[in-house]
């Protein structure tokens, strides 16, 4: 077949065999691939040196993981800026559920109170009076 009608989506990515970038053999792509491989090899070497060091006693800390943790916890508020999207999401997910639940519980309890006042609710086994 000349072309496949497979369309990638958020939860189903394009396989590398259908990706035209995979078959790109220009010198620039090759150079970029070589550079990526060099970085990966350097990191692998650093890791293996620490891993196989006979004098090492404890864990090997991973700076990438520490950066990831830092970025997701401590670095969040300093980079916060109130924008319309931010404020809307904050109101919708932060305050919305509280108000929604308040109204549900309030109406339910008011309805029950009304029925009790009118004597229509069956309170045969009610322990609290």
């Amino acid at each position: 077949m000349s072309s496949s009608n497979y369309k990638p989506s958020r939860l189903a990515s394009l396989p590398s065999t259908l990706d035209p970038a995979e078959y790109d053999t220009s010198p620039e792509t090759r150079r970029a691939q070589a550079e990526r491989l060099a970085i990966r090899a350097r990191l692998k070497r650093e890791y293996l040196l620490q891993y196989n060091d006979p004098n090492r006693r404890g864990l090997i800390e991973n700076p990438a993981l520490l950066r990831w943790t830092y970025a997701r916890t401590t670095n969040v508020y300093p980079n916060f800026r109130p924008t319309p999207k931010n404020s809307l999401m904050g109101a919708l997910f932060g305050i919305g559920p509280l108000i929604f639940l308040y109204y549900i519980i309030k109406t339910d309890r008011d309805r029950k109170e009304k029925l009790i006042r009118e004597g229509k609710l069956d309170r045969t086994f009610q322990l609290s009076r």
Partner: protein
Amino acid sequence: MAVARAGLLGIQWPQRAFQNVVPLGAQTASHVTNDMLPVSYPRTPEGWAAAPKKYNMCVEDYEPYPDDGMQYGDYPKLPDRSQHERNPWYSWDQPDLRLNWGEPTHWHLDMYTRNRVDTSPTPVSWNVMCMQLFGFMAFMTFIFWVGDMYPVYQPPGQHSETLSPFKKERKARRGGSSL
């Protein structure tokens, strides 16, 4: 405290036990310095040059999240691929996470682990799968609804097994009618 690396002449085994001990306060708990940590969105050319080096990335690959106040800072935006897609046969440093030491980790790594979201390619496109599934469900729902509106039953009658012996004999004498 002076036992540390200096190496005293004397008994061997206490010395070996203290081989890795250094005087208190001479080492930090972590080898990560302040310049290795993420900062805010890069605004200067120096920031743009330093960020990919900090994250162990190529300059071409580095692309921070857009600066729209959503608190990403200068963290790189990596392709949204789950760990399921990574080569299972390569010798990763962390085989369960399919991750290498020092490799730039995706912001949503905890979502893309192999226990959770999977973005592997499917045999057919997502929209085709949706059409097939929902089409079939809709069709079957419609058929069952039509069947509910126009039910079809067999005509009621007395089967000979349920009759008493007297009625069976009477039915046989009459010629075996089914009614």
